[in-house]
Structure formats: C-alpha cells, structure tokens
C-alpha cells in the first residue's frame, strides 16, 4: 500500500550561473518512507535537497522557478510562499550533512541550540526534549554521562548521530540527509542505516546516497538523477 504524498515538486527548474541544473521536474515523495536519490557526482543531488529547505538561497547566482509543496497538518503549504517563514520551514524540514557538523560547543548545547532559537528556556522541558531526541538517535546511552563535554570529542559516527538528534529535537516532519554515512566506517554506517529505517515512523526521509547496496537496504523508493531530471531506479 502506498503512503500518502508528503512533498510535491511542481515544474521545478533550477539554474546556477545561468546553466540549468534541473528542468521542469515534477515529483512526489511519500510520507513515512525513505526515498533515496542516487546518481553520479556533480549532477546536483545535494542541490536538490537544498531546494526543499531553501538552503540554496544563500548562494549567489542561483535561480529557481516552480513550486515545492509540503503537507503540514492536512494543508498543502507552498514552502516559498508567505505562510511559512524560512526558520519555521527549517524546523519542519531538518537536514543532515555529508560531514558531521556539530557546533563548537558541548553536546548538550548542540542539542539545546535549535530550542534556544525558538526561545524555549524552561530547563525541564529542554532537558526532556534533548533526552528524547538523543534516545531516538540511539545516542543517549553513549553520551548521557558526558553531555557537557565538547561535541568534538565524539567519534565520527557519534557526531553524525548527534547531528541527526539535533535535527530531531525540533520534531521535524521531513528529514533530508546528504550522504550521511559517506564519511563513516562500515560499522558506524550500519548503525545510522538502522536508525533511519526506525525514523520512518516519525518522519519522511529523503536520503542522497551513492552506495547502491545501501539504497537497496534502506530505501522504499529510489530515484536516479540523470542530466537535468530524475529517473526511477
């Protein structure tokens, strides 16, 4: 049975320095599923993710046309429209990068960072949310005794799970992951794969990956990015 659609991309065209990267893309992404995006390097897989949380907008010389809709509380919302602010969008659509990018702070402060941005200060509530997100990211047992140590003291795999947990603390509905295991060894990667499959309950996941075996292990749907457009795998 197919899940309902969560993200709808409509006639999307994106160019960089006036060179088209995508042209007239129409795509649907199912809710509570993992959609994998594969394809050769340099075709714009990461760029495509950044169109879904508007992170591309900080780049000069980039231009986008078309629409991206996401389903929030039963309503289709145009993410480039006025109803949703960029910070709010990014709390609904979390992102995890290729290289783990904890901020230069303690584990606790990294986790509290997204909450601080929303003005949440009540310590008990913050602590509860942090604990819950760390548990969801399979990290709690490994860090519970050193929450106030630097995040840089964690291993690569732990740092990446911290970044996933940090994204989860805002309770996103969509999670974008840009080659989340490519900087990790096989053991750390497999923990993250298990985690992603588990997270389907809570979120809609889009994972960029160029490991075909990984795609076949975790993805419900796979798309291959070819010149300027997507093909089903």
């Amino acid at each position, binding site marked *: 049975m197919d899940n309902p659609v969560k993200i709808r991309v409509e006639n999307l065209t994106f160019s960089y320095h006036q060179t088209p990267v995508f042209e007239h893309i129409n795509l649907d992404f199912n809710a509570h599923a993992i959609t994998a995006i594969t394809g050769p390097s340099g075709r714009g897989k990461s760029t495509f993710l950044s169109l879904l949380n508007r*992170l591309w907008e900080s780049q*000069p010389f980039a231009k986008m046309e078309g629409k991206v809709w996401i389903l929030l509380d039963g309503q289709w919302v145009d993410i480039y429209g006025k109803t949703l602010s960029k*910070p709010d*969008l990014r709390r609904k659509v979390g992102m995890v*990068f290729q290289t783990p990018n904890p901020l230069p*702070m*303690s584990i606790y402060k990294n986790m509290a960072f*997204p909450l601080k*941005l929303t003005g949440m200060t009540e310590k008990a509530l913050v602590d509860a949310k942090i604990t819950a997100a760390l548990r969801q990211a399979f990290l709690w047992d490994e860090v519970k005794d050193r929450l106030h140590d630097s995040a840089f003291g964690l291993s690569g795999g732990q740092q990446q799970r911290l970044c996933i947990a940090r994204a989860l603390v*805002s309770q996103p509905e969509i999670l974008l992951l840009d080659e989340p295991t490519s900087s990790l060894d096989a053991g750390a990667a497999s923990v993250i794969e298990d985690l992603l499959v588990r997270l389907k309950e809570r979120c809609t996941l889009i994972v960029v990956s160029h490991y075909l075996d990984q795609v076949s292990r975790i993805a419900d749907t796979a798309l291959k990015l070819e010149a300027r457009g997507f093909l089903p795998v």
Partner: protein
Amino acid sequence: MTRVTQQTARIVFFLSAAVSAMAAALVFGFLLVFGFPLIGGGEFFSLLARPWSPGQGLYGFLPMITGTAAISFLSIVFALPLSLGTVCFMGGLGPARISRLVDGFVRFMTGIPTVIYGFLGIFLLVPVVRTLFTSAGSGMCILSASLMLSLLVSPTMIIFFKDGFDSVDVRYIQAADALGADSVQRLIYVILPEAWPGIVTGIIMGLGRAMGDTLIALMIAGNAVHVPGSILDSARTLTSHIALVSASDYDSLAFKSIFACGLTLYVLNAFAVIAVRRLGRKRGPVR
C-alpha cells in the same frame, strides 16, 4: 615543494620575522639610550607624575599621558559599536550588493591621509561641538578629537573584524541555517563567538592606531598642557607633544625629555595591547 625551496622559504620568513622583532627592540633601545639623561638620574618616574612647565624647570608629562589615554580610549569607545555594526551589516544582516559597496568604501577610507580627517574635524566637527556644548570653549577638545579619531581607526578595525568573520567555518554557518537560525541569531550565537579572536585583534590594532596618531589630536584637541578634567577640556597627547616640542626646539632639556615621552608612549601602548589580550582571552566554549 622540494626540500630546498622549503628550507629557503623557512629561512627567509625567519629572517623577516627576526628583522621586524629587532626593529621593535631597537626602537625601544634607542629611546632608552637617548632618554637616559633623564632616566639615569632616577627622574623618569617623577616625570610621569609631574606637570609640564619648562619655565620652572618642570618637564613632567602627566598631562600628556592622561590626554593620550583619554583620547585613544574614548575613540575606541566610539569606534567599536560603529565598526562592529558595519561588520555585522556586511556579515549577513545587509543585502549582499550594498555590503560589497560598504566594503569597498571602508577599504578606500583606510587610504585617506590623516590630515584630511583633521581638516574635516576643524571645519565640520569642532564648530558643532562648540555650538552644542558651551563649556567646550573653542570646540577643540578631547570629545572632538576622539570622535574624529574614531572615524580614522574604524576602517582598520572593520578590516580586522571582517577577517575574523570570514574565518568562521562555513559548516557552522550552514548548521545554524539548517537548524532554523535567522540572520541575527546566526550572528549572535555562531559568528560573533567564533570571530572573537579577530575582534580582539581589531581592537588592538585600532587602539594602536589611536594612540600612535599625532595629527588629529594635534589639530583638534587644543594642545593645552594640563590634566583634563572632562571630555570637553582641551588636551595634549604624547604624540602631539613630541611633534610640538621637536618642531620648535633642538638642544634644550625640554627636547631631551621627549625621548622619555616616546618611551612612555611605547610602554603605554604595550600595556594596552596586553590588557586587551587578557580581557579578550576566550574562556567560554569547550572544543
């Protein structure tokens, strides 16, 4: 790179570093030697505390020390918010196109000769201060000089601040953006703490420039030789004092005293640098 070129580069850079360190040490030595007649007699420290009155044989420069301290400190007080504000504007709060214009303008400002600032001060700023504050007399006072000086040192500070901002790891900025930080939050929580060493360096360079500048204070601080009681009083800095005395004199005891004056400026500057470094030492975030 081959071993030989690497070795050569190392030697060349070592020599450059050694020469500049030596130059600073030589200047210090030179001041010590020429100021020796006053220092050797055990009079140096009493000079620091005495007034300047050559007619009565008093060659102290307490007034100039306070003048330098007041004018340079105050100019940094004015320049810091101005510079930090400009850099924040360029670092993400303002539109990119205008930021580039501002950047170009700031770099242009560093090239404007000091005397132009002095002129502007005399014809534009001093009359305003004179009109606004009746107790400022002619308008040539610490306030006028430090306001003008803050314009002079701001571009220097801005350039160092901006270097600090630019050195912030782009991954931190991306992380903050992706977590939903708006541009002000990104600035306060991520960029400013990371750019802190650059900000401290900028303050030191600005303070150094403010203390070392001669012309602005000479032209618009009024040059009175008494310890100022308020920022609306006229004052003389150590640098203006050296310029004034050496322009009119050559062989008197007054002339000899200006070496001690230079030495004082040197030491004062060194203390200021150390103080800012200590204050600015990063204590917070764990790494």
